[in-house]
């Protein structure tokens, strides 16, 4: 009977059969999720989850959100969620200790700085290398700075607020962030700051995926549902709603 219930909302392999338990950050940031409230369904990531849940046969109220710190999400041992969504990039090393779904989104990177900074009017990577950089720990932004731009001594902060504080204190000139985050920060949180340029994607960064406990058997089922959702154009729709960029921004490629 258990086998028969697999791949239904009553799947015994779920944290709580009948519920889809989804981990996320604490707090959650726009535009990934708006208003620090995943359950409201406003935002790119929670929008995606509700579409996915529907695809898997869950009712909207059967989606249960659990807030976790980054450390809790990556800790060994049993997790308190079926999977977690938190702009987590899929990499080889990480895949040794957790299991990822397929990639659902590959963000562009953007250079953000205050007006009058050293990166304003930069035309090439060489121009960018002359500036002082900062990034947030646990993101692929730092890897991007080091591997693509070749910046050695980037400062690393706990969160975006640290990065922008350092910018205002004139301790760094600019940062690289995922474009959606850049859009939100420059629009709402630090209106002074602006997107200076867009950067090409990192081939080694495969993009965001859902994070499962290592060798969680649910992956197949979720992957299938995710493919269906992507095929339906849901992701593109969400991108258009929450993650649009100014088409006139300059792009620096080398």
């Amino acid at each position: 009977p258990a086998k028969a219930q697999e791949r239904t909302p009553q799947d015994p392999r779920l944290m709580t059969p009948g519920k889809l338990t989804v981990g996320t950050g604490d707090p959650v940031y726009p535009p990934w999720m708006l208003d620090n409230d995943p359950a409201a369904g406003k935002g790119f990531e929670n929008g995606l989850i509700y579409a996915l849940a529907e695809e898997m046969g869950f009712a909207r109220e059967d989606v249960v959100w659990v807030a976790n710190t980054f450390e809790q999400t990556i800790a060994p041992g049993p997790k308190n969620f079926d999977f977690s969504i938190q702009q987590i990039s899929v990499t080889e090393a990480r895949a040794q200790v957790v299991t990822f779904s397929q990639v659902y989104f590959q963000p562009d990177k953007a250079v953000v700085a205050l007006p009058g900074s050293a990166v304003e009017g930069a035309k090439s990577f060489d121009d960018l290398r002359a500036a002082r950089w900062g990034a947030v720990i646990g993101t692929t932004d730092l890897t991007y700075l080091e591997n693509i731009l070749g910046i050695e001594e980037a400062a690393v902060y706990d969160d975006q607020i640290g990065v922008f504080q350092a910018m205002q204190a004139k301790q760094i000139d600019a940062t690289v962030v995922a474009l959606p985050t850049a859009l939100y920060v420059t629009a709402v949180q630090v209106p002074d700051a602006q997107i200076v340029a867009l950067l090409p994607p990192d081939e080694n960064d495969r993009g965001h995926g859902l994070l499962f406990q290592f060798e969680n058997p649910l992956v197949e089922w979720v992957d299938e549902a995710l493919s269906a959702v992507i095929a339906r154009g849901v992701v593109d729709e969400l991108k258009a709603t929450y993650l649009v960029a100014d088409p006139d921004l300059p792009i620096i490629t080398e």
Partner: protein
Amino acid sequence: MSLPAGPGGSPADGAAVRRPAPPRRRNEWRAALVPTVISLASVVIVFGVLGWWISSAEQWPRVKLQFFNPEAMAAAFPRVLQGFWISMRIWLTALVCIALWALVLALVRSLRAPWFTPFRLMVVVYIDIFRGIPVLLLVLLFGFGIPALNMPGLPNSGLFWGTVAMVLSYSAYVAEIYRSGIDAVHEGQRAAAKSLGLSEWQTMIHAILPQAIRNVLPALMNIVVALQKDVALLSVIGVRDAVREAQIYTATTFNYSSLVVAAGLFLLATIPMARLADHVSRKDRERRLQRAG
């Protein structure tokens, strides 16, 4: 004139003639008045100039907005207070456990019988290691590692194991403080207790420890105050203490005022305690000076 004056000569204070002693000179206060005024004035001036200088900086309003914003403080207060209760509960629990476990460590390190030699050594190693390893790592190792092992019979709560890690780490520090207090108690006290027939254990409890702890009260207060804030380390394993709540607010609003609120709450809790410890030390010292009959 090397001849000594006789008892009758020179201004000797005869026992028969008894003048009343002049009253105690009361102008000590007045003597201290001028310097007090001057130094208070200098303090006011120094701080005034500093304050004026800072607040006249062009960027001051922005910094003020981000660190000392009354509205943000008010908004953050309820959540931070809620976290503060959690901080306090963990803090008090950990304090009790640390006090006891550190005592065990210190006692083992202070016992003299040959039976204890290897245990003494173990305690030295324990202290070196647990003091040397960053608490953060211990919290991660215990808070995630042990529950992950999924051992039957062991509790599974990250909070529990995180607190255990804090206790193990802080105990190493406190044990060293206890030990310095115990070492400072005079050897004669041990001899006296032993000669009364007290066992080594009773000697410790009744004779040595009460004196040892008084010896190191300020250092212990340091630990008590530091621990209160280090409870925040448990936030990596998901505990929402005061600092964590403040940081969540900070991260969402890009405003540090919530941390100032948390700091205010900590001060409210620690300052009375610091004053109490001072008071105890002072009374102790005074008793030592004042002698009856």
